[in-house]
């Protein structure tokens, strides 16, 4: 089943680069996630949303990939948010400390309206 592979999809909404992560976020996902991040960064995006799909498998290797993204987001002065995580992975993101560097929203819409408020203020 294709669910075992990660599919990455990039969309642009209201000035935000939305990166859909469809499938499992494990060591096999590294190239695709990093590639998508580099692409939107090369396009000059400041606001990035990683949109997960509920109930996909994320393991510690996937978390390491995401920490790598956060490292670059911080260096490049971008803003990162995440949406679509299951309650279990929201909890794990908080435990790991990722939630301090990327706001967690239930849905894409909530994340987008938060980005709108932010870009209005800035």
């Amino acid at each position: 089943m294709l669910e075992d592979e990660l599919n990455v999809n990039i969309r642009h909404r209201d000035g935000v680069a939305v990166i859909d992560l469809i499938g499992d976020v494990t060591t096999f996902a590294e190239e695709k996630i990093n590639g998508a991040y580099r692409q939107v960064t090369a396009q000059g995006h400041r606001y990035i949303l990683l949109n997960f799909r509920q109930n996909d498998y994320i393991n510690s290797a996937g978390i390491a990939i995401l920490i790598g993204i956060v490292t670059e987001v911080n260096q490049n002065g971008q803003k990162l948010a995440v949406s679509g995580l299951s309650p279990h992975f929201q909890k794990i993101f908080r435990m790991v400390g990722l939630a301090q560097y990327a706001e967690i929203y239930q849905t894409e819409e909530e994340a987008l309206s938060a980005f709108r408020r932010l870009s209005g203020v800035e």
Partner: protein
Amino acid sequence: MIRLLDSTPTIRLGGMTGMSGAEGVTEQVIELRLPSRLGYERIAMDTAASLARRMGFADERIDALRTAIGEAVTNAIEHGNQADEAMKVVVLLTVRPNELVISVSDQGRKALEVEQTKLRPHIADVFQRADKGGWGIWLMRELMDEVEFTLAPGGGNLVRMVVHLERMPISDQ
């Protein structure tokens, strides 16, 4: 205890005489042997989740168990067995009246150092490192009620994890 297991509708699975000890403690053991290839940890996760569901664990405990066992098997595959597919990862799932015990062992191509089992990574430090990993063992410890590292009988590394069933035991003694 036997009566508890048998009268509890959620444990059609509970043990009766399986490996009865002197104190009348009952347990049942399921053994799963997997090839050392990344991806097969998913089978261990699904098998353990299937068992935990039938034992009556709450969904969030099952999610925690999935993650912990996934990390343990991934480590056994990648580190302990160095991804040599001919080497087996052995998962024992022991069903007890009030807990599930999971043991994951590898064939010890690489020894696990004691210090590595006690790491508590901090994300701010990790940003500075090239290797952003090192969260697996810590996650197991955070998610499970008990975690213990020992040597497997065959000389490999063995992780033993326990999750308690949050249900009041009705002792019949």
